[in-house]
């Protein structure tokens, strides 16, 4: 039995709106094992992003949280940026457009690991190499707009892992990118968490993408957990009709064509 990093017990998140309370997440029980790659699958409105924000304790201030998140795998309550790294969907808006790449990547390392300026830049350089940015020395002095969408997402990943977090949360990190770049980013994330022994929570709407690398899958719908389990089991024997419909809706080269050959 592997040890647990986090335990979600009856976790609910709600937003007060015009007289009534809208639940974004309802009574979620979920364990996250140390070192696993967990995929959170859901469509829009499923609460998957809310779950990611709650795990990283970066929910907006008006959100109300009930239930608990325990962290048996950490000695203390997690610090965002230090113990939990976060990769957002759109690297165009998560990176600061007027700050040099080197300083942005070094920032987390300097703040949380107490590195000095030059040590921070050295760490940034090695991180940019790890996320395979071409010519990392030059990239340190560059600005976000000089990079393509896929490279920006690599830089955002370098920022997220700068302080050696135990948990890396990636919220739809590839849905703004094309498929070739998506495959590269997924391979990169997968490799990084293996090498560093990090835990990965990967939020996506694409069950096929998740099935390629996740150890476990948790399916969400309308703010509730539908089912969770080992990837192989969920895909082979989905217990819930909704999971079956998601699997059926996946389109790959085995899907039936809708046209007759011309």
């Amino acid at each position: 039995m592997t040890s647990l990093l986090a335990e979600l017990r009856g976790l609910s998140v709600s937003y007060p709106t015009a007289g009534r309370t809208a639940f974004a997440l309802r009574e979620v029980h979920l364990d996250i094992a140390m070192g696993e790659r967990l995929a959170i699958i859901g469509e829009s409105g499923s609460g998957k992003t809310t779950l990611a924000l709650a795990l990283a304790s970066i929910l907006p201030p008006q959100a109300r949280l009930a239930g608990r998140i325990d962290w048996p795998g950490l000695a203390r309550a997690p610090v965002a940026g230090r113990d939990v790294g976060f990769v957002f969907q759109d690297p165009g808006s998560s990176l600061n457009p007027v700050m040099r790449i080197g300083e942005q990547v070094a920032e987390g390392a300097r703040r949380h690991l107490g590195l000095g300026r030059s040590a921070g830049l050295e760490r940034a350089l090695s991180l940019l190499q790890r996320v395979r940015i071409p010519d990392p020395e030059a990239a340190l002095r560059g600005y976000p707009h000089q990079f393509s969408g896929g490279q920006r997402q690599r830089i955002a990943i370098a920022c997220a892992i700068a302080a050696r977090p135990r948990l890396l949360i990636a919220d739809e990190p590839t849905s703004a990118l094309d498929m070739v770049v998506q495959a590269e980013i997924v391979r990169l994330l997968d490799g990084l968490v293996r090498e560093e022994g990090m835990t990965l929570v990967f939020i996506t709407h694409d069950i096929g993408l998740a099935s390629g690398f996740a150890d476990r899958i948790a399916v969400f719908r309308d703010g509730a957990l539908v089912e969770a389990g080992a990837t192989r089991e969920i895909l082979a024997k989905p217990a819930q009709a909704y999971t079956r419909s998601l699997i059926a809706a996946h389109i790959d080269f085995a899907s039936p064509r809708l046209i007759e050959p011309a």
Partner: protein
Amino acid sequence: MQPLLAVENLAKTFRSGGRRVTALDDVSLTLGRGETLGLVGPSGSGKSTLARVLLRLVAPESGRIEMEGEDWLALRGKALRERRARVQMVFQDPLAAFNPRATIASALADPLRIHGTAGRAERPRRVGELLERVGLSPDLAPRAIHEVSGGQRQRVAIARALATNPSLIVLDEAVSALDVSVRGRILELLAAIQKTDGVSYIFVSHDVAVVRVIAHRVAIMDAGRIVEMGETEGIIREPGSATARALVAAVPRLHR
């Protein structure tokens, strides 16, 4: 037989911050009636620019487009506005594709009014018919666009494209922003419309697996050029170009 659309040697470069970016480089293709051509490529490959050139939203530097035997790039002013009925478009983000103040009824009545397809008194009935054709209840007509779900909105966008009885609809990443369960339904709707109306589609996407489901032929684009074009299944089975190989390899498969 004369093709519906014949594109020859299109070229287009953009200038961005002093640099010249080639968006289209010697692009030629043809499209038959009732046929779907998939346009696939990585981002920045020029597929969206090609779509916008075909819709006369962007002017190419050189090249020719023949649409139903007519010089499509020579049309100007009123003649162009009238002929626009023949070529319609569905955008990626259905929320951004409608005026934020529009209701479903007003969005669908606009093309009917502009092209004189239906008189004022007849329009509500025609709007209802259009909604039914895309699988929506006519009762939705008075709703604001932002009040309905993403899938319903994309159906309204398809209804708007159908309102002018076009012979070609350009679908620019029309299912990419939709939830997976909605995506399949929209693809089924598009295929059904083609079967009954014989409309042609140009289906722009970065996902070859989705293109395979709906497109008879596919053109693979990279850096503004068509690097490979042919029958969809054939290209997926034996991709000839590096771009096509990368696109095919990138499709996530279900690992059961």
